[in-house]
């Protein structure tokens, strides 16, 4: 059914991505590909992977933007983007077959590969470029919010988070219920003024982004005394070493 669920529950699972912390290492994109190429929407086909013009299906891509500030100053912001599991998902309502659907119980937007005819209209309707067509399979694919991982009882509980979240070495990705105002992710969004992308498109995305923290000017910056030097304890070195040290220092 491609009409949006009328009685959607309060649960809105999604991601919160911290643009202040992301270092643009692409680890989440790689682990997303790794997990999902054998998951719910597997495989994530690559075409010509070792040739001159490789292309392939990815659910998560990392863009890098430069933000030029007034004073001629600029900063680099790494910007991961995957499906935002929109509340008013246009990709779902345009689908003629019912293959695209939004789950009432947790808000995850999925594609049923058995029913998809590969008309690509959903990818035209998504403002965020979150849907990618698999030419080999002839069907549309997209981020599943790792639906096969977050509920997977074969995994230890701490591993039941999306692949991109568990792999991020910087801790820039958070997963949780954005429908619950008291959840950790909701509190984080409230504390850091998290925002939605392209609100003018009226898709009501669930995922939130946390803005980069204000830049500190060199004058204001304070730094602690170097820790490393303080940790040297020359006095505890051996007798020979101290003698050599004194000899060579002369």
């Amino acid at each position, binding site marked *: *059914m*491609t*009409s949006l669920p009328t009685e959607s529950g309060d649960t809105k699972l999604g991601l919160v991505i911290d*643009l202040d912390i992301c270092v*643009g290492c692409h680890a989440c994109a790689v682990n997303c590909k790794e997990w999902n190429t054998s998951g719910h929407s597997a495989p994530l086909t690559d075409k010509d992977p070792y040739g001159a*013009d*490789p*292309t*392939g*299906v*990815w659910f998560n*891509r990392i*863009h*890098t*933007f*430069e*933000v*030029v*500030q*007034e004073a001629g100053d*600029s*900063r*680099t*912001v790494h*910007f991961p983007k995957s499906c935002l599991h929109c509340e008013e998902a*246009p990709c*779902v*309502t*345009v689908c*003629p*077959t*019912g293959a695209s659907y939004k789950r009432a119980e947790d808000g995850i937007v999925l594609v049923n590969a058995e*029913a*998809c*005819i*590969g*008309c*690509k*209209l959903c*990818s*035209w*309707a*998504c*403002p*965020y*470029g979150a849907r*990618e*067509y698999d030419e080999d*399979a*002839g*069907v549309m694919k997209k981020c599943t919010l790792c639906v096969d991982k977050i509920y997977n009882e074969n995994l230890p509980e701490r591993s039941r988070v999306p692949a991109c979240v568990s792999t991020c070495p910087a801790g820039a990705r958070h997963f949780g219920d954005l429908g619950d105002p008291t959840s950790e992710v909701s509190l984080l969004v409230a504390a850091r003024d998290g*925002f*939605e*992308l*392209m609100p*003018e*498109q*009226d898709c009501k995305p669930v995922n939130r982004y946390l*803005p*980069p923290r204000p830049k500190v000017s060199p004058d204001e910056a304070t730094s602690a005394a170097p820790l490393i030097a303080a940790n040297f304890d020359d006095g505890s070195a051996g007798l020979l070493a101290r003698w050599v040290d004194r000899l060579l220092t002369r």
Partner: protein
Amino acid sequence: MHPAKSVILFTTASGAGYGLIAWFGLFGAFGLLPAELWMGLLGFGIGFGLIVLGLLSSTFHLGHPERAWRALSQWRSSWLSREGVAAVFTFLPAGLFALAWVLLGRNDGLAGLIGLLASLSCVVTVACTAMIYASLRTIRAWHSAWTLPIYLLMAALSGALLLQVFLSLWQVPLGRVFPWAILILFGLTLGAKLLYWRSLASEEGGSTAESATGLGDLGKVRLLEAPHSESNYLMQEMGFRIARRHAEKLRRIVLLAGFCAPALLILLALLMPGVPGVVATLIAVALFAAGLVVERWLFFAEAKHVVTLYYGESRA
């Protein structure tokens, strides 16, 4: 947007076919067309031929054509599904009307009523096609109040030109006044198209690289590094830019070949009855067909999708 041949063929050919059958239904029902065997065979043959050609081409560009029937299920929310339902439904009254015309030699009375229903279904189907595009908020050039009227006018005009060929070949009296209607349609369509292009140029897109990233508060946003070194599906499907470079030239081709020249030829045909008139009408059809294809190609190729904001565009 990538101007796929299949979609251009689908919208232009099926539009012309629906246009022709709509005129047949309308004028047949009002007794302005004789229910003549060969006119019926050729007219419905060409009309249905164009429709089927369009529908087949749109089906074969699917990843899974064998599942196309599933597209009839989501008419509650999806314009593409509605278009499918309307297209399938139209075959019923249009087919019955054609049978009555060809087999029974009737297009009046009950047959005429069925003909009117066929005309209405044709209009609804073309309107659904237009709404597939007009309903997409992601593409400003399509999410415009002009998309629906222009699709309807283009289909009416292509059908009317085809009809005029029949009118002049069979020397139906209607053929001496219908060209005036065609000229009015030319004027309306041309006006709509010009106003549409003007609105595209004057209105700014509401989405920017700043709103797409939410980083506008910090300053001006510009793409520094794309996610991957090579192209991807999104860029191939939605990042088509060639047309915008040649838009001016192509628009002039549409205006001259698609509108001015055929309109002049129709005027000429009015003054020259007989064979030269038929020839002029045929040339007008051919020129308009070429103009229509360029117009539709531009409709896709000029359209900019907001996803390009994540790939280096600053406004869409």
